[in-house]
């Protein structure tokens, strides 16, 4: 066994320099395992087979945080990959790392690969472009929160599964009915800060942070303790107290409960589609994320979560040409449409969305286009373009802690959000002085 392993190692080490001599190698570090990992591998293989000048080598480097760390450590050691996958909360960190990153618009211009920044969906692109409109990283996997409904659970509790759930006011009434009908887990959520604060703010067109949510400068302050956010969290806190909203954890723990059929309503990313459709043994459907009718007559757009691809500084020009070709390949309509249909992630170009519709995918899989519509129905405003905050991973941690105090009834929503603002602002000031 050991001998085999050593033999295999010897073979791979012996073979790889040969490949490198023949073709220019492009290193691509990503954070995907399982089904998503296979799909990434397939994309890379397809690209490698499509031409013989470059060869892209993909490696999995752990989860999002670990991949970012691996990229940072590698850069410090002078061993950085050409392409690094970074999740959306790491965007400000990467943007500020001038000298470590090579903006995508520059790479594309220099490589001469086909690249049309206007082809990308505004709400997706906006997250990763400067206020001047220059694209810094290529959006790769983007999703947005939607409302998942367990139709069987609704019926079991005596609620019409087709009932209108477009507003939180109506959801509140349905939660009452579900509770009265004996449902033990009427509502559950994943990614509470992302859905119930960041997206809530964008969806109601109120700021989450000053300076256009951080897009306009590093001297930004959190504004998540405004009346809209506090009213929403107060309602959620009341639901939690009455056992109508069940808190399961800071990440997507609630997904297991929903997929097992234990919960009626679930706010989760549109990319939950792959897991829910394969595991759920009940009838489900997808609805747009609800909004507060009392605040807006119709909602703005939601914002994205997911990751983008950053090109690292410090490589040779012909290697960047390969990077450009690969990124151009990834943005092509066919690749994007397949990615969108397989994963539930949003198509990053409008054309890929249209190709999917033309192929009849949305008719066969109703609800899969809701995320796209929700993102693209309106032109994004300064409040709904996205978030660009330093130390954002830590700030989310602070928000999680404060939200837990609301769910357990120890703090009012106002107290918790005031405290989150104070603590988060301290980190933003630190980030400002470090960059």
């Amino acid at each position: 066994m050991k001998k085999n392993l050593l033999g295999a190692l010897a073979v791979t080490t012996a073979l790889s320099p040969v490949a490198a001599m023949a073709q220019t190698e492009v290193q691509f570090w990503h954070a995907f395992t399982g089904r998503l990992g296979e799909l990434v591998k397939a994309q890379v293989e397809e690209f490698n087979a499509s031409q013989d000048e470059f060869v892209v080598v993909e490696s999995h480097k752990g989860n999002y945080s670990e991949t970012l760390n691996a990229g940072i450590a590698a850069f410090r050691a002078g061993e950085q990959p050409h392409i690094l996958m970074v999740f959306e909360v790491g965007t400000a960190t990467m943007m500020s790392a001038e000298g470590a990153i090579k903006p995508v618009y520059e790479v594309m211009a220099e490589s001469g690969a086909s690249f049309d920044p206007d082809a990308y969906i505004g709400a997706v692109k906006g997250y990763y472009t400067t206020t001047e409109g220059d694209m810094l990283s290529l959006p790769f996997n983007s999703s947005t929160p939607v409302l998942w409904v367990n139709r069987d659970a609704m019926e079991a509790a005596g609620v019409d599964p087709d009932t209108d759930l477009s507003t939180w006011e109506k959801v509140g009434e349905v939660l009452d009915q579900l509770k009265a009908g004996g449902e033990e887990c009427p509502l559950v959520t994943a990614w509470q800060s992302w859905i119930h604060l960041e997206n809530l703010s964008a969806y109601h067109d109120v700021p989450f942070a000053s300076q256009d949510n951080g897009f306009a400068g590093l001297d930004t302050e959190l504004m998540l303790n405004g009346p809209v956010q506090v009213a929403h969290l107060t309602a959620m806190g009341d639901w939690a107290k009455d056992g109508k909203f069940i808190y399961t954890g800071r990440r997507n723990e609630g997904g297991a409960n929903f997929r097992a059929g234990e919960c009626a309503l679930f706010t989760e990313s549109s990319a939950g589609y792959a897991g829910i459709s394969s595991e759920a043994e009940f009838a489900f459907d997808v609805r747009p994320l609800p909004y507060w009718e009392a605040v807006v007559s119709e909602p703005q757009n939601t914002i994205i979560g997911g990751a983008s691809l950053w090109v690292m500084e410090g490589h040779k020009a012909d290697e960047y040409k390969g990077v450009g070709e690969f990124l151009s390949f990834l943005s092509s309509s066919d690749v994007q449409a397949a990615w969108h249909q397989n994963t539930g992630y949003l198509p990053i170009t409008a054309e890929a969305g249209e190709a999917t519709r033309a192929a009849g995918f949305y008719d066969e899989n109703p609800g899969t286009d809701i995320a796209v519509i929700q993102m693209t129905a309106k032109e994004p405003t300064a409040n709904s373009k996205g978030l660009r905050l330093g130390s954002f991973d830590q700030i989310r941690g602070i928000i999680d802690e404060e939200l837990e105090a609301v769910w357990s009834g120890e703090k009012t929503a106002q107290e918790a959000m005031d405290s989150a603002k104070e603590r988060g602002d301290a980190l933003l000031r630190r980030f400002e002085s470090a960059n």
Partner: protein
Amino acid sequence: MEKRVTFRGWLLPLALIAPQVIISAVFFFYPAGQAVWQSLFIPDPFGLSSQFVGLGNFEFLLSDKFYRASFVTTAIFSTLVTLCSMIPALFLAVIADRLIKGAGVYRTLLIWPYAVAPAVAGVLWLFMFNTRVGVVSWYLGQLGYDWNHVLNGTEAMGLVVVASAWGRISYNFLFFFAALQSVPRSVIEAAAIDGAHFWRRFFTIVLPLLSPTAFFLLVVNVVYAFFETFGVIHTITGGGPQQSTTILVYKVFSDGFVGQDLGSSSAQSVILLVVVGLLTVIQFKYVEKRVHY
């Protein structure tokens, strides 16, 4: 009388201690020095620029009431982990020592948990106590107790303590068991003939003779609870709910490797180093006086 080996010349003794000195220098003094140096800066994650702030990182930390609160959390956590890993270990060792048949099997089984890495142990306990699918929380639910460590800080603390102490019991058991073997049988038999019952013999003879081992384990376990438990915390609670299980070392990890704030993370590890250093000094100064070698 002390036994002492004398060497002629310096070369051989130097060569003999060199491996230990080199290992300490490479794996301890150098990184510790780096941490002290980095704690004076706010660097950007990529190491492209770095701003000297003097003691600014320490000021920032100590003025943060959540950071100060995590000292209390750490004190509670390490005390509980140390107690929960040493007392059951001693009890098991005493019982196993009395066994005549099958002692080897028990010993082997008791040592197994030590082979489980902290993060894996964390996941195992998390599965048992998961609020929805956990076996233990299901039984507790049957008994009418609503287990929810996701929102209840006390339950979360209890869970991480048990998960951290569990594997450690094996380690402590090994040492206690070995120490028990070296307690002279003749002394115990003499006491037995004098009419001292088992627990009396245990408290007046065995326990004092075990005190060097117990002291060693106390120091080692405190160090373990301070430094090596972040894997358990990371997998089970992530420091929550709120900050009820955010111990100092977990904050070092999350600020440094999740938040990319290496300046603050370095400053925290320096503070942690000082705290554990002081604790060890206190242990050697006061607790060791009560130890009979």
